């Protein structure tokens, strides 16, 4: 139970940190690392199904399937949030660009 609480806190902090400091190369590196770990974990879980059960027992989340489910949920949630923030940022850039075009066009018209 204590471990689960800790896990939740760490996850929330991690989410917050990664979402807030998007864009810096350090964060991008962490994200890749995170992805690689998940991928490796997935391969291991496929090759040795018993491993997930053992890890699940150690960290105290019940069955191996539960652990896989938790991890999947976290990854999906993170991806969703990350994409949402990215989308907003992309939007912001487009708006800036379009505004610049509009104002420049206006200047051009006026100077004619």
């Amino acid at each position, binding site marked *: 139970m204590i471990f689960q609480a800790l896990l939740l806190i760490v996850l929330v902090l991690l989410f917050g940190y990664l979402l807030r400091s998007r864009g810096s190369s350090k964060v991008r590196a962490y994200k890749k690392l995170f992805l690689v770990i998940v991928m490796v974990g997935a391969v291991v879980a496929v090759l040795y199904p018993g491993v997930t059960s053992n890890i699940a027992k150690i960290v105290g989340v019940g069955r191996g399937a539960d652990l896989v489910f938790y991890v999947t949920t976290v990854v999906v949630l993170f991806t969703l949030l990350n994409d949402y923030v990215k989308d907003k940022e992309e939007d912001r850039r487009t708006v800036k660009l379009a505004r610049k075009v*509009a104002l420049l066009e206006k200047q051009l018209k006026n100077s004619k």
Partner: protein
Amino acid sequence: MHDIIIVMKQNVLIAIPAYNEGEQIVSTIESITKRYPNIIVIDDGSVDNTVDMVEGMGVECVSHPINLGQGAAIQTGIEYGLSRPDIEYFVTFDADGQHRIEDVEKMLDHLKKNKLDIVLGSRFLGRAENISWQKKSLLKLAVKFSNLTSGVKLTDTHNGLRVFNRRAAEQMNLQMSDFSHASEIINRIREENLKYDEYPVTIVYTEYSRSKGQSMINAINVGFDAIFHKVVGK
């Protein structure tokens, strides 16, 4: 006498965001030009004849190459005004004819007299004609939500009629492109310690403004953005 009044208003810019408002824009502008010489219409990528109508009246117009949203249009209007050193006061005014120019006059006076940075129109201090009960309850709910989350107490949080000075315009820097800009402006008031007040205005809902208004379901987007902004800080 008429000329003197116009001269005094030389430093006021009326910014009108417009998206496919060809039907209404002419009569909205006509109500303004008699009193204020500086108008900028921000065409937000309209696909109808909005731009032709505006330019046909000899009124200044900036055109977004693509549709960006009302918040983005307001920010474009602000940046246009900031690029002109003669502009000291900014007014945001809806294109659909729901605002009255008489209110702008009073709001400007109120701003100058009390040395405020921004004055927000309030239909709930003033009057909202022909408002549907659904719209009214939604707006009231939005006010409650905003007062709870923003720390700036207001009676009407989504009123398009605003008057502000150059200092407020410089701080505005609106990032939310869609209708969330209303909450963003309120956030700026708090963040930048802008001196603000509300002023009673009359909003007249017509068949046209009702058909043009944002759909009620969009409130969910606005609410979500506000909460998300609080949590993630973006």
